[in-house]
């Protein structure tokens, strides 16, 4: 009898734990959606934060350009090298251009670009807002009747949404150019075949797919990173934990969203 009770208690505790976790996750998602949504809605409400938006676009977009360019160049180069190695086994090196272009434009440009943006810009967004929380700057803004959602969160989300498609397009072009250099100049693939196959195989749908991904990832990074900073525990450890979590959730979220977008919509 008593053993049964203990077993039931154990079972109940286990189920309770699981339920609590799930409810917590749902509440977390809901809170993030509400913070992001209410911040984005403020885009229609004056005062407009044009200056802060420009400053954020400078910090997040222009600041990430170098790392995006380096990542793009090396991605294109290694793709060309590996693609050549594989295609040469079938004697179809002439397809190298389309192989490199399709992988970069459809997949690697948006995903690697987004991961780089999470690592470089996302972490700084979370840390910055988290420290504003610790040092009570957010409260100070509220005291002065300035809504921190419209002054701090909104410009950052809009900046990532606009910056990522631009950065991804630059990533694509630099990657293709680097792939061309390795494929044509170093490995000796026919230049006409490389560019001709590339142009013939890239359809408008592929470009739209890449840009849609970039827009969605930009929104995801902006909302996750601002939210993690906004709700960070106001302690030193809290900010450190929030920054780590923002990068982890942002990166994993990008990869998960990438699969969902690719399989269902694009």
């Amino acid at each position, binding site marked *: 009898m008593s053993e049964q009770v203990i077993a039931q208690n154990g079972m109940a505790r286990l189920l309770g734990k699981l339920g609590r976790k799930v409810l917590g996750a749902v509440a977390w998602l809901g809170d993030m959606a509400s913070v992001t949504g209410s911040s984005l809605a403020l885009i229609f409400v004056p005062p407009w934060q044009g200056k802060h938006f420009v400053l954020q676009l400078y910090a997040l977009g222009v600041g990430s350009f170098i790392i995006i360019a380096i990542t793009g160049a090396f991605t294109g180069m290694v793709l060309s090298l590996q693609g050549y190695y594989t295609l040469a086994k079938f004697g179809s090196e002439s397809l190298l251009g389309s192989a490199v272009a399709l992988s970069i434009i459809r997949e690697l440009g948006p995903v690697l670009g987004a991961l780089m943006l999470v690592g470089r810009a996302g972490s700084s967004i979370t840390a910055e807002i988290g420290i504003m929380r610790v040092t009570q700057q957010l409260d100070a803004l509220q005291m002065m009747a300035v809504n921190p959602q419209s002054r701090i969160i909104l410009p950052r989300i809009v900046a990532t949404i606009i910056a990522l498609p*631009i950065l991804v397009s*630059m990533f694509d072009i630099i990657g293709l150019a680097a792939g061309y250099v390795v494929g044509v100049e170093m490995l000796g693939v026919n230049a006409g075949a490389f560019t001709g196959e590339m142009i013939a195989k890239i359809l408008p749908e592929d470009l739209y797919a890449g840009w849609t991904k970039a827009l969605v990832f930009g929104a995801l990074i902006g909302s996750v990173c601002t939210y993690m900073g906004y709700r960070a525990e106001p302690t030193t450890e809290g900010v450190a934990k929030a920054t780590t979590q923002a990068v982890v959730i942002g990166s994993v979220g990008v990869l998960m969203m990438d699969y969902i977008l690719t399989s269902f919509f694009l």
Partner: protein
Amino acid sequence: MNEYKKIEMIVGAFVLLGIISISWMAIKLGQIGGIGATGYPLQAVFTDAGGMRSGSDVMMAGVVIGRVGEVVVNERSRARLTLLINDDISITSDAIASVRTKGIIGERYVRISQGGDDEMLLAGDEIEETESAINIEDLVSKYIFSSSEE
């Protein structure tokens, strides 16, 4: 404020560079609103289009002279292709359109062989003489079965 002006300028340059990148990709790679959209349309009906897709090449004498537009099945269950031919190319009314393959396993394209007629096709006209795709599997199986019967 001077510092901010400088930042504003750099951001402007960044966005401009982004717009140039996006439109370069759209025009050069995707050919959105580019060369693919121009040219005059001709119709051609095939019994077998052999997996032809819109965007495939239309060639004459081995030179690309246009692209395949729409590929649909018509009311008589045949494949109707819209060919977008470059404006500077005129095609005789007795020309032959055939679905060909680049190499053995390469991609499909439409080959146009000019006829001897003086009359030229106008936009929207149909190329009457067509030759469908050669299906290698059919050829192979025909060969195998005809030789086993002997």
